[in-house]
């Protein structure tokens, strides 16, 4: 028998909280910088960001102190995002190229590489300072 079973579901939905994550502010403020300044002074509150799960693969971090420049990381990088600086025995990572597979962190014999929680990486310039890790 053909009916319209979606109707009761829709009516129920009216009294439920939205399933989507909340925006930082409920309504778009007239000035974002002013709003953020207010948040800084503690006069306004923002919805906290949604937590990422444990072992999330975010922006890569690099600790050059132990690095020997063995270039194993560059060898397994599928996106060719790692440049080996041979003379300095260091590496440089272009985050705009990185595909967040975390393979370099697995292979690094010195444990110099790790994945952080950061995922808000959008920028107009793909060679911006925060998108080059060295």
């Amino acid at each position, binding site marked *: 028998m053909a009916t319209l*079973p979606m109707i009761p579901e829709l009516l129920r939905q009216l009294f439920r909280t939205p399933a989507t994550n909340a925006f930082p502010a409920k309504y778009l403020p007239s000035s974002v910088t002013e709003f953020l300044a207010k948040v800084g002074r503690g006069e306004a509150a923002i919805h906290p960001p949604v937590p990422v*799960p444990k072992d999330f693969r975010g922006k890569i971090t690099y600790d050059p102190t132990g690095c020997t420049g063995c270039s*194993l990381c560059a*060898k*397994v*990088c599928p996106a060719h995002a790692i440049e080996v600086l041979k003379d300095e025995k260091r590496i440089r990572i272009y985050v705009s190229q990185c595909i967040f597979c975390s*393979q370099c962190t697995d292979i690094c014999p010195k444990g110099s590489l790790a994945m952080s929680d950061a995922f808000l990486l959008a920028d107009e310039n793909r060679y911006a300072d925060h998108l080059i890790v060295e």
Partner: protein
Amino acid sequence: MSDDPQKKMTPYTVPIGPTHPALKEPVMFTFQMNGEQILKADFAPGQTHRGIEWMGMRRNPVQIVHLTDRICGICGVSHSLAFARAMEQIMEIEVPERADYVRTIIAEFERIQSHLLWAGVAAHELGFDTLLHLTWRVREQAMDTIELLTGNRVNYGIIQVGGVRRDFTPDQFPAIEETLQYYSDLKSKLLKIFLEDKTIQMRCRDCGVLSYDDALKLCTVGPTARASGLNMDVRVDYPFAAYGDLAIEPILPDAYMGETRGDVFDRIVVRLLEVDQSVDIIRQCLDRMPAGEVIAEPKLAKLLNQFKKAHGEALGRHEAPRGEVLHYVRMDGKEHPTSWKVKASSYSNLMSWIPMLEGEQIADIPIIVASIDPCLSCTDRVAVVRSGERGIMTKEELHRLSVEKTRRLSA
């Protein structure tokens, strides 16, 4: 309308595509129409060739595994699994049993989210956007679980040649169980909303029919084939990973509806029932999951050395949500493969559009095209180049032509 009796009125041609709001991915359709009715249909894929195989043949298999994640946006694990299985056969690596179970569980979670995504798209193509939002809301539960298990929502990056890169930790099992319970509870509701709805029945019953014979002749795979009554499923026919240990039956529409018509409605039935089947498969896996290692060779540097000794060719297959994917790899003692061929499941299914579309109406094109769950950017492996010309104008070439015309006129 012209009164000229010489002018031929029918059939007239309606082109749809390559990019069109009703198509989710670029493909060029040409329809010969008589009024609203489609007399003949033709299509030309090949608008989204990305040269992935070319990239792969310049990389070593450890890199390719992550490239295969990105062949398809939805089948994040299917291509990786097929490729890894091909490599494991060449190198004669025995995958640890626990890794097989982890692979199976992730693959089935992927099937859940892919089928729900498709169900939402199908509802959207029918103009039923309320249902699109409902299905995509419930899909998030599977996405969140995948993110918890693998570290990412879409490009999981969990498969490695010889096993998987992450094992499940004990604290993840309650979350998996919660998701399975969520979808078990949802089953009757989803089936009711989709299959008892008047609009869906009106639009999908006896629409886009693919007969058993056509499905067989055109070598369709996956849910498209099963909806036409073909009893085929790579998981059952050629068991791999942990599927050989599990009790699985291919889902056919007559088991639920009592008959097989091979129409769009049957394809909805098959996919919705497969969501529940995947829940059952994951439950079976969790019950039987052995302890132990999850990767044959945990040291990546050693694995890289083994590639240099690998000789031979192999086929890796997997039943992706859309049907069988197939990877052919040949290794000739170099770090990178000599040959790598990817056959995505949509490649086998695209030809079934022709018998489905002929005789239907213009308004049915979006839902029929969507009903095989086409994945065109996964399928495109070829770009036709004739005598150096691709037949595609870039922005620069158009600009040059424009400048030349101005000069010609002013000369």
